[in-house]
């Protein structure tokens, strides 16, 4: 199965493979480093806007004087920054690096990729500026005005070109499942963005047809962009760190194809009850329920690979973040399927419950897996170790506890909101009052998550400016290493 297996004990082959990895990481240093480094800047800005938006929901007079900071601009700015500034920027960097490693081919044209990173960041900066100054399109997930789109699309064209180059230059043989996921994501995202931006913003179709395209895009931004990058990273990192192959190769293939087909059809469950043909909504409800297939196969593969190795999450930061993320993926997907059932959707639609669910996918899963990936990639790119295990600990616990609290508070508030909204006797302002304590607790939980992001950013900057060469010892949560297994 594994072509490397026979060579495992040949010292010459081991040395050759090590040299190859060094070469790959050196070629990736600048482009991947810039993508990942700039994503952390957007993470911090996105968090600041998130807290501002959260405070505004329980204290509406907060920062209300300035039009640039009104809730209806800060909220979409937060969403677009975390989606395109943080998750996408980090996702491109992580995807390219894993692809380069798995194709055993160094990135060839790192100048065009560095240009791509610059364009991508410019697109985000211009788009954010556009939203805050009042040019938002108010199309959910696509609020960046048209003048930001060319930056993003041209940048992505370079990323696609390089990814095709890597696939072409790979030595013959097995293609690992992470390569499937990452290549698919690199082609799905621009196709989604181009279609949706074109038909909704650039040359809008008649208004009644807009929401289906909007939610086809918005749901697939998570399902066909962040999810495949996150799953590709988890499929790569879990076996790497614990030193055993994935549980089942065949399941991973079933998981890929069922995700590719069913996830793409999910989006219309955001429109249940709205003015659309029944078949359109029903198609998505069915596809949402069918998501149990890819989710269960991926869950079996990730969690069964981990069986017997969970204690390694005590030591490995990467593994702890990625396993946390993989668990959230299972939960988010199960929850998402249930939310598409019409009777339950009757309560949860139009409430904060949906916001909590979106964060379970985009934060609990994608963001946490990306944190774990960055902990793994950066020491290899820079040949340096993370400077402080204390900061990594703060990062993990603030984000994990903060996020779990965020999710519970907001889901609970959302359920109450949904139940009361369906009681015609409950006056609307009473529902607003009912959600208040939960919205305040959300601000507290979100601040804790942001504290974790600050620890991460400090850790990252410290790593960049310190000239300490690698000691060869990875920075683990604990100094004690339980056994000589390869751990990172």
């Amino acid at each position, binding site marked *: 199965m594994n072509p490397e297996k026979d060579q495992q004990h040949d010292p010459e082959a081991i040395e050759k493979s090590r040299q190859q990895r060094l070469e790959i990481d050196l070629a990736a240093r600048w482009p991947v480093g810039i993508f990942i480094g700039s994503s952390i800047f957007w993470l911090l800005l996105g968090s600041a806007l998130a807290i501002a938006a959260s405070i505004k929901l329980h204290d509406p007079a907060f920062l*209300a004087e300035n039009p640039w900071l009104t809730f209806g601009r800060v909220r979409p700015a937060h969403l677009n920054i975390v989606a395109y500034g943080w998750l996408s920027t980090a996702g491109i960097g992580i995807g390219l690096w894993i692809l380069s490693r798995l194709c055993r081919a160094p990135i060839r044209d790192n100048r065009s990729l560095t240009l791509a990173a610059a364009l991508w960041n410019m697109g985000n900066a211009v788009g954010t500026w556009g939203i805050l100054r009042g040019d938002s*399109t108010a199309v959910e997930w696509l609020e960046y005005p048209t003048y930001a789109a060319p930056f993003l699309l041209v940048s992505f064209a370079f990323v696609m070109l390089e990814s095709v180059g890597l696939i072409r230059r790979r030595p013959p043989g097995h293609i690992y499942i992470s390569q499937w996921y990452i*290549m698919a994501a690199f082609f799905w995202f621009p196709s989604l963005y181009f*279609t949706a931006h074109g038909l909704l913003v650039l040359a809008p179709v008649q*208004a009644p047809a807009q929401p289906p395209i909007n939610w086809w895009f918005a749901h697939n931004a998570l399902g066909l962009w962040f999810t495949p990058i996150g799953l590709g990273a988890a499929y790569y990192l879990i076996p790497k760190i614990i030193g055993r192959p994935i549980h089942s190769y065949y399941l991973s293939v079933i998981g890929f194809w069922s995700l590719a087909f069913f996830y*793409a059809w999910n989006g219309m469950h955001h429109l249940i009850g*709205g003015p659309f043909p029944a078949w359109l909504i029903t198609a998505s409800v069915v596809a949402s329920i069918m998501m149990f297939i890819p989710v269960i196969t991926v869950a079996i593969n990730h969690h069964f690979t981990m069986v017997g190795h969970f204690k390694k999450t005590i030591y490995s930061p990467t593994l702890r973040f990625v396993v946390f993320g993989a668990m959230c993926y299972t939960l988010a997907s199960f929850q998402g399927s249930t939310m598409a059932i019409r009777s339950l959707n009757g309560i949860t639609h139009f*409430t904060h419950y949906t916001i909590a669910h979106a964060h379970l996918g985009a934060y609990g899963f994608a963001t946490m897996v990306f944190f774990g990936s960055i902990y793994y990639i950066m020491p290899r790119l820079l040949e340096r170790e993370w400077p402080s295990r204390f900061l990594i600990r703060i990062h993990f616990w603030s984000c994990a506890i903060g996020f779990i609290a965020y999710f519970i508070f907001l889901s609970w508030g959302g359920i109450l909101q949904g139940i009361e909204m369906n009681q015609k006797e409950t006056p609307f*302002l009473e529902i607003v009052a009912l959600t208040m304590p939960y919205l305040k607790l959300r601000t507290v939980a979100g601040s804790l998550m942001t504290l974790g992001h600050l620890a991460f950013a400090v850790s990252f900057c410290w790593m960049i400016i310190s000239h300490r060469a690698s000691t060869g010892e990875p920075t683990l949560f604990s100094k004690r290493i339980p056994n000589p297994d390869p751990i990172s």
Partner: protein
Amino acid sequence: MSKFRYIFIGFMLTFLSSWVGLVLMPVWGLGNFEQTPDPATGEMIPPKLSSLEKEGRDVYIANGCVYCHSQQVHPARVRTDIARGWGVRRTVARDYMNQEVAQMGTMRTGPDLSNIGVRNPSETWHYLHLYNPQITSKGSNMPPFTFLFETKKKDPENPAKDALNLPEGFGPGADYEVTPSHEMRALVAYLQSLKLSAYEIPEAPAARIESLAE
């Protein structure tokens, strides 16, 4: 490359299937509506937005009203929209044809606005509410939109006719007067135009929909 080529074709085909189903089909089925004469009045419905109402819609879009207010009335058998008075019938696709930018929304931090033009036609109420929601709706978490109003020193000889009549404790004080800006006027004109399901349309006569709800 040969093996990867099949994977590539495969995942682009699954993508294409959703593109046909959820993009192309809606454009065909929901993208070509035409106005129809109202059987009662003979006017063409749904009505078109005036240029001031369009300006107002752009203010609505720029300031992200959609993140808290939906514009869709759901059937009575699913939700309490009709019981709450948000519309006499559910909204149907054609109701939105002249909106140009769909603002149907996915969140109800605030109430639905599909028929706010019928539910609350008072211009004064909207100005006070948008100046500071606490004036009209105490406990609301809607932000004040003071930046869409102009505050000037009051000229006792010649007071502005359209100055807001702000209650005690709100506004800049007795020496000043607050008037709606042009953008605010446009926004309120747009809100008053929102009567998305306030007329009968062949595909959704109110009476029939109501009887379905029983």
